[in-house]
């Protein structure tokens, strides 16, 4: 953990102050400003129904982004998450509709498969000494193909009422996917902040060489992070399949971009070792809010893409500036 600049004796310039502040609450501030802006432009925005609506929409990407935070904190990346969503979704739909309709199997098997794919990603990239970008590029294609293979080119539709609870159910006024999402955020935050496992993840991401020399079994932590991500991608696949009432072949296509964007906008460094899951929560919400707000205003989606892209670059730029001032 870097020393806070305030403890230094020299005078801190205004620009530096700004970046210190930005490091702490910048993204939250940006999020609040965007929300207020949309609130003024379209009063419906702050309607409680709409707020729940946005968080529910975000939860599908957000659950994956929580897992991706672990992987990116370790300096890794995973492009296969969208394919895992589709594959586990179609397996869940298969168990619901074609292979006996057991609720238990249609939840447990996809989650195990998701975790298994994550394990595979981690195992191949660490033990094989390959960059995870390449490995997961491979598994991304493999499991998109496997999805088509299992589904034989058609969506599988018609889930049972109990299965539909995962994506469409409510506990009191709160949609169940929101509970799953916020639950995974809290659990991940506890793991990262309060456990040895979490501390080692930051240590490895910050300086892998040093971590190795001090006897941390780096490979194990990396494989675990990928496994967590695979598991959460499968959870997202279950939520999506349940919400759509259908295992879709194009499900999850392009999700990797939104997921990585959420993590990066949330302030987790692509270099690893810095950031956290609360940032990811805000990052995911910011992306969701922009899409929702522009939809409410009836803006064509071309603009949504342009806005989102700009925010990603801005966020990374801020991250870079922050570092420069810290090392200066």
């Amino acid at each position: 953990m870097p020393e806070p600049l305030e403890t230094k004796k020299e005078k801190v310039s205004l620009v530096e102050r700004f970046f210190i502040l930005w490091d702490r609450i910048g993204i939250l501030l940006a999020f609040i400003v965007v929300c207020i802006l949309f609130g003024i432009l379209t009063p419906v925005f702050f309607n409680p129904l709409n707020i729940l609506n946005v968080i529910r929409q975000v939860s599908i990407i957000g659950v994956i982004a929580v897992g991706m935070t672990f992987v990116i904190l370790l300096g890794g990346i995973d492009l296969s998450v969208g394919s895992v969503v589709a594959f586990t979704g179609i397996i869940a739909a298969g168990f619901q509709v074609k292979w006996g309709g057991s609720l238990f199997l249609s939840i447990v098997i996809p989650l195990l498969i998701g975790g298994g794919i994550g394990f595979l990603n981690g195992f191949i990239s660490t033990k094989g000494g390959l960059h995870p970008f390449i490995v997961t590029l491979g598994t991304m294609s493999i499991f998109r193909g496997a999805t088509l293979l299992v589904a034989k080119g058609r969506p599988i539709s018609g889930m049972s009422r109990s299965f539909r609870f995962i994506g469409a159910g409510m506990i009191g006024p709160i949609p169940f996917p929101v509970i799953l999402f916020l639950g995974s955020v809290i659990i991940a935050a506890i793991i990262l902040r309060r456990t040895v496992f979490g501390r080692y993840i930051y240590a490895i991401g910050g300086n892998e060489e040093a971590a190795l020399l001090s006897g941390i079994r780096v490979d194990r932590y990396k494989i675990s992070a990928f496994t967590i991500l695979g598991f959460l991608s499968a959870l997202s696949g279950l939520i999506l399949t349940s919400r759509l009432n259908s295992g879709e072949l194009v499900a999850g296509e392009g999700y990797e971009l939104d997921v990585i964007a959420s993590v990066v906008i949330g302030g987790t460094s692509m270099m690893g070792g810095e950031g956290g899951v609360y940032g990811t929560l805000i990052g995911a919400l910011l992306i969701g809010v922009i899409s929702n707000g522009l939809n409410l205003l009836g803006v064509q989606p071309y603009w949504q893409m342009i806005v989102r892209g700009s925010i990603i670059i801005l966020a990374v730029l801020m991250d870079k500036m922050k570092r420069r001032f810290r090392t200066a």
Partner: protein
Amino acid sequence: MKKLGVVGTLVILVASLCLGSLALAQEQLTIGLSFPSLSFAWFAFLEEAVKEKATQIGGIEVISLEAEDNVAKQISIIEDMIIRGVDGVLLVPIEVEAVVPAVEALNKANIPVVTVDRRIKEDAPVEVLCHVGADNVEGGRRAAKFIVDELIEKYGEPKGTVIELTGTPGAGPAIDRSAGFNEIMEQYPDITIKAQTANFRRDDGMKVMEDFIMSTPQIDAVFGANDEMILGAIQAIEASGKLDVKEVITVGFDALPEALQLIEEETLDATIEQFPGRQASTAFEILVKYLREKAEPENKVILIEPAVITKDNLHEAEKSIQ
């Protein structure tokens, strides 16, 4: 006894081999089928229809390859087909222009090509034996007319708010369907159209519809430029608790089995049928006829007229409820 069985099997095997090669000697054809992606159920039906027709005619091997919705991939697939020496190609081009070089290569190799569903740019310097397709503009018009009629029935006059979920920006069917739809709707100034793309996808259809439900107090009708989007929109309407799906007029496009099921249950009001099976088998027949009998088709373009499928004429749909 055992020996007799073995001999018997052998005899049958040899006989069938002879018969098989006899058919081969007659005129064995190899036909390549290249289409955008298996991820859309529509193309899965098309592929099935072609294979069925091939078995029905006999003596034809179909090499069917999907291109993962990637133009470069489709071009290389066609190049590979040329090297493999196929006799003819049935092509669903991903894009109007980008696939032209591949068709040029087919022309050069003297392999006839018939396009199905989507066409090549009209003034492209290539030779296409025939195009069999759907009239997407007309399909859009019919969807609009259906909604107008329903609105008149509801209010006594053509008025109300209609949501239009458009397809992937830039895709041919998305442009054509929307053009036809709006051509009709423009004639009714009291009907407000609110359009947004949902990329032909169910998840996007649901998400965009959720946002429309928040922003638009009164929604009378929803048109999805394909069934996937309208199915997503219906999920959103059902989950909203604000709108009754039986009250909202909903129209899809493609007549997928799932949509037909919802029409039967009166959740969905209508879908537009473009008869992919009929398109595919017509195109296939034309190609085989040309290869075997050198018979040129009478028309260079054959458009199959779309139909509005509602609960009253469900039986006219090509696919049936699963």
